[in-house]
């Protein structure tokens, strides 16, 4: 019911820049994921939207209103804190009920709503306990329930699933996705987890050093990275980045290993990006290039082969039935439709 607009938002502590001149339009009802390495300013951005941190400069708009001078309580946002922020002296029930109580919800309405929120995060049997008597993952779910117990203008969720076990994380992910579609509330969601980002987001903003590197749908971010950082950050395993040059329509690694034909003019310095998925694994001699296996990993769903091209290593993804051993030689071929080139100096993408 509200869009969130950040205009040239900066946060500095002395000389240190936490968030740097960031502009971002988060559409009404959109699920926006902030993705980036630790310390890149995700939490700081959230806290500024919530009103817990005062921006050094820039504007924050929620809906039709500039909220820079509004207190957190007047911004009508609900937040899941990275470190939960549960009230230790209250029971889980009272924790979840607090935003309702303090906003004057009629008593009769509170209990059913708290119970519903608790059920959504599978916490029903813990309502009488204090936070101290819960595990980390359970506490995190209390924080989540406290946010979803009411319908605010904006949800701010700071790594709300980071402490859950793998199975519960998948369940909660689906629950959150369902909930955000059902409630149609603008959501800003911080995560380190790429799968979470990819599955939940309408759009992903990839951040580094307080600057948004790329903003786009999960597809765009994954298939059309704007620069080296995004290419190397998104995907698991991350995209292989091979330094080399282009001569006569051929990509050669730094040590002169001829890798793959590529439709580009000659360049003396270039980085080739290729995802593990786009390297096909063959028997020795059957691909474009033979290479020895440095390490072989089998995850059950797939096999990952780390191979050596000159002194650079890349990861290829093989069939899940493939069995190889260290130092075996395999043949590899690159999928020519999914190769990316980057300028190593500007780190920008070179469009083919």
């Amino acid at each position, binding site marked *: 019911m509200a869009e969130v607009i950040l205009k040239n938002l900066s946060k500095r502590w002395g000389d240190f820049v936490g968030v740097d001149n960031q502009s971002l339009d988060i559409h009404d009802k959109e699920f926006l994921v902030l993705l980036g390495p630790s310390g890149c300013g995700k939490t700081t951005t959230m806290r500024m939207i*919530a*009103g*817990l941190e005062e921006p050094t400069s820039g504007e924050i708009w929620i809906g039709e209103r500039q909220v820079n001078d509004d*207190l*957190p*309580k007047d*911004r*009508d*946002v*609900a*937040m899941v*804190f990275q*470190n*939960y*922020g*549960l*009230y*230790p*002296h209250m029971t889980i029930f009272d924790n979840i009920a*607090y*935003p309702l109580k*303090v*906003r004057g919800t009629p008593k009769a309405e509170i209990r059913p709503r708290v119970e519903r929120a608790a059920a959504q995060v599978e916490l029903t049997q813990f309502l009488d306990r204090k936070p101290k008597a819960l595990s980390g993952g359970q506490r995190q779910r209390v924080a989540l329930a*406290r946010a979803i117990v009411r319908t605010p203008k904006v949800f701010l969720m700071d790594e709300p699933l980071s402490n859950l076990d793998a199975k519960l994380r998948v369940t909660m992910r689906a629950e959150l996705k369902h909930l955000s579609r059902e409630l149609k509330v603008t959501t800003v969601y911080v995560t380190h987890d790429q799968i979470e980002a990819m599955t939940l987001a309408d759009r992903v903003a990839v951040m580094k050093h307080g600057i948004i590197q790329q903003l786009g749908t999960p597809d765009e971010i994954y298939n059309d990275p704007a620069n080296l950082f995004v290419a190397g950050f998104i995907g698991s395993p991350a995209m292989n980045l091979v330094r080399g040059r282009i001569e006569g329509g051929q990509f050669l690694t730094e040590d002169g290993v001829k890798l793959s034909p590529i439709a580009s003019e000659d360049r003396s310095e270039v980085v080739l990006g290729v995802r593990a998925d786009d390297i096909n694994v063959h028997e020795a001699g059957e691909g474009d290039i033979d290479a020895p296996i440095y390490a072989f990993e089998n995850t059950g769903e797939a096999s990952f082969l780390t191979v050596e091209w000159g002194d650079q290593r890349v990861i290829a993804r093989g069939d899940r039935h493939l069995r190889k051993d260290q130092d075996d030689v395999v043949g590899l071929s690159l999928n020519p439709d999914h190769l990316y080139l980057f300028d190593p100096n500007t780190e920008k993408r070179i469009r083919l």
Partner: protein
Amino acid sequence: MRDNTLKYVLVLPAVLVVFATAIWPLMESARLSATVGRLNRPGSLDQYIGLENYTWAFFEEPSFWNSVWVTGVYTLLTVGLTTLLALGLALLLAPGGRLRSGVQTLLILPFAMSPALIGVSFRFMFNPEFGLFDAFFGVVMPPLADVSWLADPTLAFAVCVMADVWGWIPFLTLVLIGGLASIPQDTIEAAQVDGASGWRVFRDITLPQLGPVLAVVIILKSIFSLKTFDQIFMLTNGGPGTATQTLSHYIYFNGMKYGQIGYAASVAWLMVIPMILLTYLYAKYVFRKN
């Protein structure tokens, strides 16, 4: 020597010191409280009269009840005022509060003064001839200029309370700042985002989490207020009349000035009762499980 024996040998000196300076005088005063106990009457320190001193205090001595009353009101007022003011100051001075830094250092000053010194300096400040307050009121509120503060029973009592509150605020403030600092900041932020106003955050989040520290502060201050002596002694010496005569002062007067050491001992033992109660509460809060 076995470790087992050694550990007793090692604590023995401390035990002996405590016995000589605390336990033995305590037992001796209990014994004295059951004697006629006149310093000026030889042999009376061994002349046992049972509980007569106690019944005397209860039924024959209105000045005892006067001191009970004075001590009670004094304790209630000083504990209440000091705690409230210290809490307010702590909120302003705590991390994230509105004041800070230099002010904190300044704050500790009154606490560095001995209570007797506080008593003396307040007596001077309220001196009708050349006192600071006298001069101050002379300018601000001329009708109050000629009031002789320490000569009026109610005003003298008020000055005693004021001096005590002034002297104790720093310590309580520092303890409460410590208490406030240990409240996780994110619980306060969470409440703000949840929609709580400043007052509700204080009432629902800060105060309950500060509870145990606050309890300890109130109990400690009650103990200190109950036993106040030196400040009163220097400031009003219990007067005018007996208007500011607290129990400790009453005990001192009866014991040292009138030489009724047996009677004084019995009143001292009557004071032990609320003290033990407070100490028990204190221990309960300080050594609380988890």
